[in-house]
């Protein structure tokens, strides 16, 4: 019995043991591991593995994947530098150039008009046009007419872009000057104009109450108290005018923030109009 047990344990341990002949770190195995990490979305570790075999295997798919990984982890300079290794004959060359535009846009969200005349094959040209036109919405001013803007987009995309275009052309800003003026005429009304009703009503009540107390004390010849209430009331009144102007500015900053946020979300959903490659199936 003991002998059988020893043989049963000993046999698999010796025969199936890991031995030195199997090279876990062969180039092929590293590539397989890197591909696995890439498909899992672990771009940080994937790019490390790809970099370790980059000089051993000349492969434009690996070069493009390295560029893509760096872009995904936010190392845009490294990503752009990786483009140099993708040869001009490679089918990934145009996708690499498009990825470089994507990197530029993420790094510095503004119009990519200077790349408008870059030559490219027809299928990539359309994608690039879409990206460049959409990028113009990040600029302060849009120089294109709406028709020139929408022609390249399909129906669903077109509706979204049309919405963003209209929002850019006519943002629902509130005028800080008008908010200040309203609050000067009726305390708190500037805040109400900006949509902050609670603050507006509070400002109206506080200023009104202090004004009444000042008036009442002057009327009763309690001059010291009257002047204290007048001073306090004046500060609240002036502070409210100032605050209404500031609130309108903050409201406009919120509009700008939501616009940029929405546009970024749209571009992310479209993956910046990148061509789709199925590397994982």
């Amino acid at each position, binding site marked *: 019995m003991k002998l059988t047990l020893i043989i049963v344990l000993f046999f698999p341990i010796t025969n199936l043991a890991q031995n030195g002949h199997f090279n876990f770190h062969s180039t092929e195995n590293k590539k397989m591991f890197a591909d696995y990490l890439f498909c899992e979305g672990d771009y940080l570790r994937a790019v490390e593995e790809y970099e370790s075999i980059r000089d051993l295997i000349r492969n434009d798919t690996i070069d493009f994947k390295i560029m893509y990984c760096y872009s995904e982890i936010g190392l845009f300079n490294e990503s752009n530098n990786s483009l140099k290794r993708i040869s001009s004959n490679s089918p990934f060359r145009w996708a690499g150039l498009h990825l470089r535009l994507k990197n530029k846009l993420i790094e510095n969200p503004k119009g990519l008009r200077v790349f408008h005349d870059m030559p490219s094959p027809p299928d990539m040209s359309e994608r690039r046009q879409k990206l460049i036109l959409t990028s113009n919405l990040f600029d302060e001013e849009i120089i294109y007419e709406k028709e020139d803007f929408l022609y390249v987009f399909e129906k669903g995309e077109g509706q979204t872009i049309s919405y963003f275009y209209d929002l850019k052309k006519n943002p629902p800003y509130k005028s800080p000057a008008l908010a200040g003026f309203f609050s000067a005429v009726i305390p708190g009304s500037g805040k109400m104009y900006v949509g*902050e*009703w*609670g*603050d507006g*009503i*509070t*400002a109206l*009540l*506080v200023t009104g109450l202090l004004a009444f107390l000042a008036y009442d004390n002057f009327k009763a010849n309690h001059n010291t108290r009257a002047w204290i209430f007048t001073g306090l009331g004046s*500060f*609240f009144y*002036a*502070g*409210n005018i*100032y*605050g209404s*102007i*500031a609130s309108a*500015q*903050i409201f406009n*900053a*919120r509009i*700008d*923030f*939501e616009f940029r*946020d929405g546009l970024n979300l749209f571009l992310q959903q479209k993956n910046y109009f990148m061509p789709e490659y199925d590397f994982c199936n």
Partner: protein
Amino acid sequence: MTKNNLIFFFLIIFISTSAFCQLDNLKWKRADLSYEKTNKFRQKDYSFEFEDAGDFVKKSIAYTYWFFISDVDGDNCPFRPSCSSFLMQSVEETNIVQGMLMFFDRFTRDMNLYKGHNQYPRLKSGYYYDPPALYTLKKQNLNFYYLPATEVVDE
């Protein structure tokens, strides 16, 4: 229990005590830990070093308020920086007149009868984050400091 088992247990105890004993060069010491919760918005600096007359007036008002009202009344301001700190920072970032206007606006917002503070982002501790830099009327400050109400700010 046999003699061998006794030797075995003795060895285990002996080896572990001798191997993991406290050595002279690695004496255990009292851990110098602070369990005080740090919060940059709640630190009140009572130092009375002032640069000019305006600074003296500002600090006098703020310290008087902190000492006689704020410290006694408790932590009631829903904002961070608190209203008194907001006044100090506003005056530092702008000037005494603009700082006072910013403060009275903040005080009105603090008094909001409807408690409508939904437009402010929150700190992890639950306070509303409302830095004075947003109210200086400088556009570059707005672009830098504006945060949406959905954001949770680290303290």
